[in-house]
């Protein structure tokens, strides 16, 4: 490489580019080329969605793109609090779908939402046990058994606060062997057989298929998690973003969500 001083700005720019690329954002906010019909939707959007929406939103994004050929939907899945932190710090998102109202409130309080969030799904807790149910779990009360290795979410995360609410309402003291930071970590401990039982969402049990067995319990109604979705203010394709929100809240979206185990809002 020549050591001419001219190459310096280039190298510095490369460094800055590397800095810019280290973020998780995968958005390309540039608008795509307009399609033939002027009235059709066109544009690229990036949807930030809670990790529990991975399967459903991947499917919904594909059918949305099929319905509106001029659009492209990029998806970013992570914990709701991670996502809201990234958006508040300036990540280029066009739509945010949260797994709880608390994190959505953080976004609306930062005045980043375009209009009011729409509730589009609900989720409740379910007991997940390894296939064959080795510890013989039957209901919520049996989770407190002395030899049961129970794994739950930590109270700091949404699934954990739901766990606390359910346990309090049932009047049962749980003594888990681990309090995980995410529901996927709880599920992982159950599918691997490390834990005898875990408290996860109904949709996680559905998605895990044969890897776990689910045990529903009445007390789960004490903590119903509501999923809100909203388009963001600074979106470069505001109409596409709003159309995607309407699509998720509409019949097509609801059918997919219901099939995955989500409840009606």
């Amino acid at each position, binding site marked *: 490489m020549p*050591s001419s*001083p001219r*190459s*310096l700005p280039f*190298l*510095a720019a490369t*460094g800055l580019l*590397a*800095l810019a690329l280290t973020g998780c954002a995968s958005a390309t906010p540039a608008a795509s080329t307009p399609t033939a019909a002027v009235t059709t939707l066109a544009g690229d959007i990036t949807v930030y969605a809670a990790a529990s929406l991975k399967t459903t939103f991947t499917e919904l994004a594909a059918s949305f793109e099929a319905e509106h050929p001029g659009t492209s939907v990029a998806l970013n899945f992570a*914990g709701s*609090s991670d996502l809201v*932190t990234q958006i508040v710090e300036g990540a280029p998102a066009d739509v945010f779908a949260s797994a709880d109202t608390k994190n959505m409130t953080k976004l609306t309080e930062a005045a980043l939402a375009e209009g009011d969030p729409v509730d589009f799904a609900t989720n409740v807790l379910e007991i997940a046990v390894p296939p064959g149910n080795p510890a013989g779990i039957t209901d919520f009360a049996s989770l407190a058994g002395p030899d049961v*290795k129970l*794994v739950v979410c*930590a109270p*700091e*995360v949404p699934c954990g606060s739901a766990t606390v609410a359910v346990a309090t309402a049932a009047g049962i003291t749980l003594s*888990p*062997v*681990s*309090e*995980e*930071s995410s529901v996927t*970590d709880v599920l*992982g*401990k159950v599918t*691997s*057989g*490390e*834990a005898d039982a875990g408290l996860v969402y109904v949709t996680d049990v559905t998605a895990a298929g044969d890897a776990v067995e689910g045990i529903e319990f009445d007390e789960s109604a004490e903590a119903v998690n509501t999923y809100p979705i909203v388009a963001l203010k600074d979106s470069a394709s505001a109409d596409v973003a709003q159309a995607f929100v309407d699509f998720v809240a509409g019949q097509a979206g609801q059918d997919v969500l219901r099939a995955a185990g989500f409840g009606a809002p």
Partner: protein
Amino acid sequence: MRPSPNGYSGVPRWVLAVAAVGAAFVLLPLLAMVLRVNWAEFVPLISSESSVAALLLSLRTSLAATALCVIFGVPMALVLARTDFWGQKVLRSLVLLPLVLPPVVGGIALLYTFGRRGLLGQTFELLGIEIAFSTTAVVIAQTFVALPFLVLSLEGALRTVGSRYEAVGATLGASPTTVLRRITLPLVLPAVLSGAVLSFARALGEFGATLTFAGSLQGTTRTLPLEIYLQRETDPDTAVALSLVLVVVAIVIVSLAHRTGAPSRRRARVLS
């Protein structure tokens, strides 16, 4: 700029400029974090019950992991540096694999080894040892990721020091164990120490394998990095304050390693 000891400083200006960009890349994030610390609440934040429990657990498990690294790492480095056998190169790469393996992968591998349904899980269960969700699991995860650091630095030192003194000792009638105890180990002691410090640092920072393999429970398995990860969900101030604590501990450790490592290099140069 000060000239280097041998009187030649041939670093072109543009290299310095690029190096400065690289240094800024490493230092700016640290600075950005320090700027976010809530200093008014700093002491209460880091002295909360859960923070102290996490810090103590981290120190305790990292020390145990470091001891295991020394116990197993020193013989491993000796075998790699002083013996010659078929497949040694492959073995060395495999042993050092945890260095480059994503910690989550390490955690999964450990789960399938020491987990309840793992390769050795049944054996341990028969012996009455429960590893799942115990502090032992944390130490195992930390040892797994930290061991290569000790093996790598010690093996390098052993090769640099050479085996001349050992050969002389052996011809004078010393048994292999005597040679090891009286000649080899004293020669490479600084490298053992710096390797141990590096292992300790790596164990202290262990996150992925612990999360995957050991779980997370205050006082039992929730080490400082796991506590930071969890607090970030609800209490970013605590997470940032604890991160700073971890950074300070890391800086102290790195400077310690630098100091203990230096004499070995100097002596190695004299000997070779």
